[in-house]
């Protein structure tokens, strides 16, 4: 729902002169004042002229009609002076009142609607004070992981000094990321060499994932070819394809080749312009960077998604549940009962929860733990230890599985553990 956002935007636009949101409503006060000042200046000039004309040598030479006109002029100046002051006084006051009312209305009608809850109220389980250093460490990691691109990286030593100085990140933490950032910088400059070199070094390591690495290499060569095509020199493209690219990289990738590269080559060869080649190249560059970062993190065994980010995202998603629970709790006058487990279920997306298996014992409807681990029965159904003890009367009898007709004796049970791959 975004009704609140819509009305907030509408109400906010009233702070401006018009919908272009360029001039504020306070601008009018300024305009009126400026106008008044000009008016005064004009009147001053008139009055000055009037004074000059009232000098005896001038004044006496005038005839009666002109004298009359002269007097009338003076009165007019005074009249106008009074009038413009009145007008300015009125309009400037009116306008500032209007500004003030608008701000009050904005607060009353909109901001008060935003104050539905207090985020402090759900901070029940406080982070231990002595772990604040860990928070700083997590922040450091997050900044390195996502922000390294924005840092000055030309000189490696300078870069690590900078990171230490500004963010308190130690050299040990930053080294890997500075290397990564420098390769990304090169890629952005259109230089794929450092990245390719990194790939081939990684390929030599046994514990690296060769399949994904070779895919990255393929994408990098594709990027180089596309960049050559963009520069519009068929000879260079040909050179790029034949001399620079090891052909076996294209071997098992006919599909991608036909889809991504061949159309470009053909057009380049017959000298036809290629539509938005720029954006295609930049898409490819983005793809390469994202693949590289992924591979780099995997190779260095560092988190691809910063843990801090994943936790914050989970926190944001669970906020709704915490707020709801708090409201219910207040209505029912019950306290935040459980200390070691949240009193409600938070539904998180798969990519945040797929790290650990969760098994709920179908008999006790409780999550299995180290103290109460899962056991398999003769029929390959699984229940928790507590349930097993209960059903088998502490191992003394053979019992029927709660899910199928098969009987299980204690000897045919086995402690099991789920592991996520």
């Amino acid at each position: 729902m975004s009704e609140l956002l819509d009305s907030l935007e509408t109400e906010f636009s009233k702070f401006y002169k018009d919908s272009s949101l360029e001039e504020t409503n306070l601008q009018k006060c300024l305009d009126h004042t400026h106008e008044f000042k000009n008016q005064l200046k004009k009147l001053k000039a008139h009055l000055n002229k009037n004074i000059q004309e009232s000098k005896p040598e001038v004044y006496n030479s005038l005839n009666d009609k002109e004298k009359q006109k002269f007097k009338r002029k003076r009165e007019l100046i005074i009249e106008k002076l009074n009038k413009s002051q009145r007008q300015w006084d009125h309009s400037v006051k009116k306008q500032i009142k209007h500004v003030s009312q608008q701000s009050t209305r904005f607060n009353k009608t909109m901001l008060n609607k935003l104050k539905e809850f207090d985020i402090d109220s759900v901070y029940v389980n406080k982070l231990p004070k002595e772990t604040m250093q860990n928070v700083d460490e997590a922040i450091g990691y997050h900044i390195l992981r996502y922000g390294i691109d924005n840092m000055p990286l030309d000189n490696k030593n300078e870069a690590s000094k900078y990171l230490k100085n500004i963010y308190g990140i130690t050299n040990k933490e930053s080294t890997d990321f500075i290397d990564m950032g420098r390769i990304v910088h090169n890629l952005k400059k259109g230089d794929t060499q450092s990245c390719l070199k990194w790939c081939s070094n990684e390929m030599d390591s046994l514990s690296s994932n060769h399949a994904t690495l070779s895919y990255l290499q393929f994408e990098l060569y594709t990027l180089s070819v596309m960049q050559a095509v963009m520069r519009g020199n068929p000879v260079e493209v040909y050179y790029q394809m034949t001399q620079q690219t090891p052909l076996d990289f294209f071997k098992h990738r006919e599909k991608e080749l036909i889809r991504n590269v061949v159309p470009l080559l053909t057009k380049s060869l017959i000298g036809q312009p290629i539509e938005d080649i720029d954006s295609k190249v930049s898409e490819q560059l983005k793809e390469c960077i994202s693949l590289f970062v992924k591979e780099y993190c995997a190779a260095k065994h560092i988190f691809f998604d910063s843990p801090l980010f994943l936790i914050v995202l989970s926190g944001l998603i669970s906020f709704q549940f915490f707020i709801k629970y708090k409201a219910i709790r207040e209505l029912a006058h019950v306290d935040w009962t459980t200390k070691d487990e949240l009193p409600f279920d938070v539904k998180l997306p798969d990519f945040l929860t797929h790290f650990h298996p969760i098994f709920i014992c179908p008999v006790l409807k409780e999550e299995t733990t180290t103290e109460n681990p899962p056991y398999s029965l003769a029929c390959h159904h699984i229940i928790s230890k507590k349930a097993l003890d209960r059903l088998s009367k502490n191992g003394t009898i053979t019992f029927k599985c709660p899910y199928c007709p098969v009987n299980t004796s204690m000897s045919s049970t086995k402690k099991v553990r789920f592991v996520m791959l």
Partner: protein
Amino acid sequence: MAEKSMFNEPDVDFHLKLNQQLFHIPYELLSKRIKHTQAIINKETKLLHENISTLNEIFEHKDVEHDTLALAKITEMIRKIDHLEKFLNMQNKSYYEILNRIKKRLEFFHELKDIKAQNTETFDDHNTRNKLIRWYQSYTNILIGDYLTRNNPIKYSPETNEHWNSGVVFLKQIQLDDLIDYDILLEANKISTSLLNGRDLLPLISWIDENKKILTKKSSILEFQARLQEYIELLKVDNYINAIDCFQKFLLPFIQSNFPDLKLASGLLIFIKYFNKQKPDSSSSSTFNAEEIKAQNLPMKKDLVFQHFFHKSLPRDTSNPETNTADYDKSSLINLQNGDFERYLNLLDDERWSVLNSLFLKDFYSMYGISQNDPLLIYLSLGISSLKTRDCLHPSDDEEENKGTEDTITPENGVEHLQIFTLHSLKRKNCPVCSETFKPITQSLPFAHHIQSQLFENPILLPNGNIYDSKKLKKLAKTLRKQKLISLSPGQIMDPVDMKIFCESDSIKMYPT
């Protein structure tokens, strides 16, 4: 229109409510500015009105002399108006700047609205997902910027002759500085730091003076406590004249509301002065104790203070005066066994500075509708608890990493590589809650509550009791073979936890419910 929620994330309006301070702070700034502008306009229009009246009177004379006078008067008016115009121009500029903050924030949330709407329209999940992730990364960055601005010190760089704070540097670097009112947070940070580290009350007192009206309206005790501290600090350095002056000027007005505190404060003066005289070396140095302690940078702890002022160690049990009446020291004004004595020590304790700081932050934050706790920490607390499973933080995990390799497999290209490779094929290696950094934080927080099992497809049980996704286990075996990390015969699989090798046929299909 129902909004599709990809991650089960809240709707846009909930986001707005969650971040109401992003709008509340600029509103407060706006409101202050408008009030100020209005006051100036009222004053100036009144003056101009008077000017015009005088002018009219001058014109009554209808002679050149007076008209010339009027001319001068008009020139003066023009000067005034010009002044006002400049003032309004300045006001309008900062008014525009503040409005711009609101504008940028509305745009930020509008972006979320667009991403969500796009998802409903196009069903291009991959694209939307990436955009959503990016948006939430920005969101996280804002929280980080907020945290750093609140908590990291404001440093001075002599090269650029500027003060800087890593939070602000960060926000500017990622171009999100319009999304946080870091100026406000820095103000709090500055005052707070001067209290805690500099033992300096001046910034706090000047802030209190600026916001007296609001504080009085909220019947805040901050001013009294700050002035009391000022008084105590003066006593600590034997500045009795200024202390009494401070008492009369700033504490006495609170006689109605804080009479007991005032009594205590006056008592403290007598006690300190009395014991100062009793001090053996008091003749040699008139400003003793606190100065000394400060100079040596010693903590002003209760027992230390006691030592200094009373030359006796802190009485152990002061709660029960009857038991020790025999020890009554007649030469002293104070009954050391009297529990009331503790009160003065509490006043002298350094702990009062951090109490004062919390009082200040509470008033400051609530004035702008800012949360008392750092939002980042709130999100972390909620996030950790909703992620923490019973399988997290298993102490056995680390042991498993190093066991059972020699006799179970034939190392072909180095066991180490195999170990690393297999270990990192386990999903739990990527769990944020289990990460080294978060482990200590996670420890004391509650687990998530689950009502449904979250397992995997095709579970098979290996003879060692581990249950895996059969397809993934086979895929792992294939990769291991391909990269020549281990020689596995066809139909063989390896358990990545203990690295034992089994035949596929030894595994049993399981039926967890």
